[in-house]
């Protein structure tokens, strides 16, 4: 927990921004869309950083940047203190591996399970065919798939099984960091729990670090050690899981927590106090992006972007806390 003494973070982002140019109608010229705007983030070894936020807020884009699938428009990505952009992509690929949301499209339907799992080894020229064979066996055991699936094809597996294959593929190179982009949101709850349990076990066993993206706060709470909340491309609050769930600070985080529906028949549907309008990412609102929906809005929020308030617990971008710290 003591930030100062700890070794450098395995993964560090500073000021990462990604801007797309999107065309809306046939007749309009492309407009910039800031999918990720100035994100600072650190992930320490064996941490599970939960990243939550609503659809379209830039979570997947951030994940793609970390995986080297997209180049950030600006900002730096550092792995073990070394900047990534200069590094060889294959090096990055050995250390950071993904698990995607859709277990159906994340596996090449034309390849056998064995081929899918050994692909990283083949690409990085690790071992010979015999050792790869062994590696597949080991991975299948690890993710709890029967050996006989190795000659099968993705279409013969259920969603949960496919996700296990994806996990096996991600882990076969023994990466340090696994980026899980909503790995369970396409799965049924009964399967989701299997995968969550598996991910938890693997983390213990292999000392993995996760960036875990989800919009299910219950899942995040269950798995994450730290949580970052994203809104319209920015991280608006970041803290340890315990702190964040015990004492959410940003109004958006509060609303998110309030909208978690625990299966408790004695409660009714909560009122999140959020406005109905969802902002357009192409023309984000001025000032604090969140202000049109904020329950605790003040005048300043409409015009001035919120400050970046850091403290021992983490950080929060909100005018409410800026004043409090100033006052203190």
């Amino acid at each position: 927990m003591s930030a100062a003494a700890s070794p450098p973070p395995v993964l560090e982002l500073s000021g990462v921004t990604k801007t797309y140019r999107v065309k809306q109608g046939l007749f309009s010229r492309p407009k910039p869309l800031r999918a990720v705007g100035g994100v600072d983030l650190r992930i320490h070894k064996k941490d599970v950083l939960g990243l939550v936020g609503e659809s379209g807020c830039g979570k997947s884009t951030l994940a793609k940047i970390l995986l080297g699938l997209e180049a950030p428009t600006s900002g730096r990505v550092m792995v073990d203190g070394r900047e990534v952009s200069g590094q060889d992509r294959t090096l990055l690929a050995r250390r950071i591996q993904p698990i995607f949301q859709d277990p159906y499209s994340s596996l090449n339907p034309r390849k056998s399970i064995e081929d899918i799992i050994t692909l990283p080894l083949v690409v990085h020229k690790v071992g010979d065919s015999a050792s790869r064979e062994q590696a597949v066996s080991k991975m299948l055991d690890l993710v709890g798939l029967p050996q006989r699936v190795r000659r099968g094809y993705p279409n013969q597996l259920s969603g949960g099984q496919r996700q296990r294959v994806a996990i096996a593929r991600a882990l076969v190179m023994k990466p340090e960091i696994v980026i899980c982009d909503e790995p369970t949101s396409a799965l049924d709850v009964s399967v989701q729990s299997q995968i969550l349990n598996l991910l938890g076990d693997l983390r213990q066993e292999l000392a993995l670090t996760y960036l875990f993206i989800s919009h299910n706060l219950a899942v995040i709470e269950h798995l994450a050690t730290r949580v970052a909340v994203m809104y319209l491309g920015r991280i608006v609050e970041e803290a340890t899981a315990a702190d964040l769930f015990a004492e959410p600070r940003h109004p958006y985080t509060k609303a998110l927590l309030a909208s978690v529906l625990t299966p408790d028949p004695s409660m009714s549907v909560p009122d999140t106090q959020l406005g109905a309008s969802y902002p357009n990412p192409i023309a984000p609102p001025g000032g604090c992006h969140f202000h049109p929906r904020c329950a605790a809005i003040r005048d300043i929020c409409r015009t001035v972007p919120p400050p970046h308030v850091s403290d021992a617990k983490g950080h929060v971008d909100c005018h409410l806390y800026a004043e409090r710290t100033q006052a203190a």
Partner: protein
Amino acid sequence: MSEEPILAVEGLTIDIPMAQGTLHAVRGIDFELNRGETLCIVGESGSGKSLTSLAVMGLLPKRLECTARKLAFCGTELQGLPPSAMRQLRGNRMAMIFQEPMTSLNPAYTIGDQLAEALLLHRRVGKAEARTRAVELLGKVGITAAESRLSQYPHQLSGGLRQRVMIAMALMCEPELVIADEPTTALDVTIQAQILRLLVDLQREMNMAMILVTHDLGVVARVADKVAVMYAGEVVEQGTAREIFENPSHPYTQGLLRCIPVPGRTKPGEHLGSIPGIVPSLIGKVEGCAFRTRCDLAESACAKPIPIHETEGGHSWRCIHSHMDRMPA
């Protein structure tokens, strides 16, 4: 009880002819719904929830074979009703809200046109009147500047707004029964809560009966008066929400409840409960309990016809075990 149920379903069966054989997608389910009540149908993907709700609306694709001992809306048997009579009910006295707000609105027409269409089809009203009603309902579902929204096209709205439009559209004719098929699954958590709240409020206000189809137990717990838990085409357990959550009696329901992490209840990092295995295929002959391949308590008797246990409070479940170890409340 004295009042006639608004919807009574008995022995609803849906078979789908497929290349490999017949898929018994829904196998003899029963439920009843009274005026002003909310029934939640909950179950995993593919368990037949959507088919059941489409069957009630009479919207099943023709090639599916649907039979029931009884399928009555306000006492009227729907089976065998001529298509025109069925159309008179649809959108008028019973309405439906679909899961995908992104694709459930016709991209070629304005919001206003699509809202008005429902009313124009069933009421003798003019265009202007239909518009006024549309504006009124848009206001009701929390859409600001409703007037200007009428001339917008679906693609210009965000998902949450579109789902509100869908709700407004369903309510145009003040139906007595609304069937919402996973109305919030595709939405963000915050918006989901808003939409659910809106639905519940409107349902109370208009005293509609509502069937809410979902796979989210959290939603069920908060919204439902009655719950039907479906597994592989059968209702395995049915009862009041309180009964189901406090006294889950079918091993599947119990398993489900153990699977979900609950903030404050499950400990972070701890193993969650899980249900091993996968849903069986329903193609071909299906006998006995469909859940037995995944059930800890399975016995050979599970392959035989399964009795239904029913308590006095209307709580019933389909299992060979009548008295289960109850989950600690």
